């Protein structure tokens, strides 16, 4: 039997039942969609992933994308996947009908992308970046830019990238130095960009780079950054494509995601690189960051997907691999008995359940955030839009971080389930382990996300976002308190919510004193603490829906399916949620060890 890499039942249960997709489909923008068509689309995406993604997953790791004689050589499936994804509507899915899009909800597109990423996390990035680059042109570009580039990008004929990082400016974008000089028909661009995912491949007809650069004479810092369309090939007056002096000068060989090329691009070596301004001058970073919520959800989703795929692989192994014997009532093993399957060992069960709660909890978080994204832009009531936008802002750094960080730990547990074989290249777990490691780094590292959560999101609008999120958590707690079997867990979560308020009451005074260094010094610990509580909330919510389904005798899924969700919630509340007590102790400890200490002490 083919390897299972995604749990479609859980995906659909979370999407339709737990997060009630219908509330999104009820919005006027999505009038052409119903659950039946969404279901058909997701099933089609699974078929597409079975055929076009999963079979190439290990091959792409074994034969990495690489630089050769001025070009990037990628797996042949990259070109095929781009074209097929265009035909499927996966690149155009989110956009308005007027620009050739399908006006699908972000929540549904996220679910479809998740399926693909569970199948092969090396490929969907090519589509994701093309989609993101097209989105920037559609939102902020001129009519001419839209007409020239977007149609070819939505069909997958042309790729797209985001060019932010430079050799001297990674997380610190205020330091970028790529230059744009006004010319007769646009700008000439010169500079270097590194870590450009999907930046080049030989088979691409064209690649449309969205480049952050500084117009000569622009103000210093982020206020002087503009956004440009800089294609690999530009059109002549008669419509031919000619080189635009965008040169691939190398690539980065990585520990994971080896099929997803990471390039070093040089613009304007021959002083013949043309760029076209997107929107207004000096607004580039603002435009780029308007897309960042989507990009950060996408990173969290990719990590959640790898976590799920690794869980499925280790679960399959644990169900087949006999090793050792269960202890008898005397506390000894009976060696005359046949060996038992490793899934029967309590510690293996613990590792599998840990993976289950992380992978499904992370997926639930991704879907909820995507739902907030949809409602923040499409809800008919402006007050509701504002509410969902604040909730989205609150969850965005968490959805980027929890799946990435806890997913990495989860995949490590998956590898551990296989014992020595987990470390061997004959088995797939080691690949997931290497692939997921980039996710805490992509699109703003965990440290940066944590600064965003505590430094910006918690304090925004005098704590309104935290208050709204607490209200949402409170609703779930109240509902669970009304269900006898879940009430103890509701009380436990309620206690953790109070604990989070105590932690914030300890930290916020540092802001009032202007001691921001101290306030943010343990931001990453706060992220771990708060993310844990948020996922606890999501698990309580999942168990409410599972309990209701069991009580009403629903037959959409088996009884075991619903029971497994409640059991997983209990596992989370026993093994994961209590960790917040220790984290709170760290956060409220008055001793400060990471702010003013001397670097020489690290000898």
């Amino acid at each position, binding site marked *: 039997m083919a390897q299972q890499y995604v749990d*479609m039942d859980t995906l659909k249960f979370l999407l339709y039942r737990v997060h009630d997709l219908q509330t999104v489909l009820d919005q006027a923008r999505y009038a052409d969609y119903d659950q*039946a*068509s969404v279901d058909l689309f997701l*099933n089609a995406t699974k078929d597409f992933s079975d055929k076009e993604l999963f079979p190439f997953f290990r091959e792409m790791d074994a034969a990495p994308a690489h630089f050769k004689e001025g070009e990037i050589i990628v797996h042949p499936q990259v070109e095929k996947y781009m074209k097929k994804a265009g*035909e499927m509507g996966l690149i155009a899915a989110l956009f308005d009908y007027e620009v050739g899009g399908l006006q699908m909800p972000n929540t549904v597109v996220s679910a479809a992308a998740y399926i693909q990423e569970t199948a092969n996390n090396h490929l969907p990035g090519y589509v994701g970046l093309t989609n993101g680059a097209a989105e920037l042109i559609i939102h902020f570009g001129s009519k001419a830019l839209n007409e020239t580039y977007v149609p070819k990008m939505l069909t997958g004929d042309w790729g797209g990238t985001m060019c932010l990082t430079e050799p001297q400016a990674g997380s610190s974008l205020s330091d970028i130095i790529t230059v744009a000089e006004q010319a007769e028909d646009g700008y000439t661009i010169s500079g270097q960009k590194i870590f450009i995912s999907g930046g080049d491949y030989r088979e691409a007809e064209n690649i449309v780079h969205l480049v952050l650069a500084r117009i000569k004479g622009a103000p210093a810092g982020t206020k002087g950054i503009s956004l440009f369309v800089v294609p690999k090939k530009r059109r002549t007056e008669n419509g031919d494509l000619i080189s635009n002096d965008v040169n691939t000068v190398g690539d980065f060989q990585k520990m994971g995601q080896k099929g997803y090329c990471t390039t070093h691009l040089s613009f304007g070596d021959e002083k013949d690189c043309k760029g076209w301004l997107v929107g207004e001058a000096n607004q580039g970073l603002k435009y780029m960051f308007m897309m960042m919520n989507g990009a950060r959800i996408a990173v969290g989703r990719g990590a959640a997907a790898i976590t799920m795929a690794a869980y499925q692989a280790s679960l399959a192994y644990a169900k087949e691999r006999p090793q050792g014997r269960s202890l008898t009532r005397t506390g000894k093993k009976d060696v005359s008995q046949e060996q038992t399957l490793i899934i029967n060992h309590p510690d293996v069960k613990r590792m599998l359940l840990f993976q289950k709660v992380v992978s499904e909890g992370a997926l639930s978080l991704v879907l909820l955030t995507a739902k907030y994204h949809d409602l923040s832009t499409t809800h008919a009531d402006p007050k509701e839009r504002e509410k969902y936008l604040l909730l989205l802002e609150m969850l965005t750094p968490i959805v980027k971080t929890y799946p990435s960080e806890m997913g990495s730990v989860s995949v490590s547990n998956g590898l551990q389930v296989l014992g020595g074989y987990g470390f061997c290249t004959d088995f797939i777990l080691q690949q997931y382990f290497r692939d997921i490691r980039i996710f805490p780094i992509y699109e703003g590292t965990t440290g940066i996300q944590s600064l965003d959560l505590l430094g910006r999101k918690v304090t925004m609008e005098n704590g309104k976002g935290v208050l709204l999120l607490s209200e949402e958590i409170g609703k779930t707690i109240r509902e669970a308190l009304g269900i006898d079997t879940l009430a103890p867990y509701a009380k436990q979560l309620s206690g953790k919510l109070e604990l989070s308020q105590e932690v914030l009451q300890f930290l916020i005074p540092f802001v009032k004193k202007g001691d921001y260094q101290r306030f943010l010094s343990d931001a990453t610990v706060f992220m771990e603490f708060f993310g844990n509580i948020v996922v606890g909330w999501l698990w309580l919510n999942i168990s409410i829906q599972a309990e209701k389904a069991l009580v009403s005798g629903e037959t959409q899924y088996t009884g075991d399916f619903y029971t497994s969700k409640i059991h997983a919630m209990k596992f989370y509340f026993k093994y994961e949620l209590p960790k917040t007590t220790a984290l709170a102790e760290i956060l409220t400890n008055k001793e400060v060890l990471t702010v003013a200490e001397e670097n020489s002490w690290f000898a």
Partner: protein
Amino acid sequence: MKILVCISNVPDTTSKINFTEDDTKFDTNGVQFVINPNDEFGLTRAMWFKEKQGATIHVVSVGEVSVEPTLRKALAIGADEAIRINTIPTDGLFVAQQLAEVVKNGQYDLIIAGRESIDYNGGMVPGILATLLDINFINTCIGLEIEGDAVTAIREIDGGKETLATTLPLVVGGQKGLVEESELRIPNMRGIMMARKKVLNVVEPTDSIRGTEDAKFEKPAPKGAVKLVDSDKIEELIDLLHNEAKVI
């Protein structure tokens, strides 16, 4: 040319199969249903006739409302209309009689059904259907060309292939080979959206004979654990094959 593709709604091969009511009923809880693969080969070949020769494709299934997603998928792939015969399909004779009524009312030139469904593997429907309609029938069909009313079909036979010439109207029992697996189509989102607006007619069943009913289902015995025998202990292996596996 007007084509009718008969579609069975069958459990996905990865589904866990269970039975209820003292093993007399198939338990559909948590089961994902798909287009019967042999029917899908037929639908894909029909799409070729639509695109190359302007054929019209209708799809039909016997079943309750739960089969509609499968019919919608066929519409999303490119069929023009769907018909659902609103009853529970029991045996092959019953299903063939229901389909025959649809064919009589629809004046179809070509009827493609899978040579068998992958759930009950009866393999009877296309043959009985052709008999009831009194028209030509080619089973285990792995190649199909049509020019006007003239049909050239390739049939799989024991150890080889047979090429047949016949005329429309015709019932075909199709299978892999009509098209290859790589040619099977995955519906795209535009197709899915268009499928929402296509006609899906629900017709009531005719009085037909239900020749059999399910008395009991049994699953195959679970596979035993694998035993590893050291390569230098051939006698032990022979003993196990003789006395335990009882295969020699």
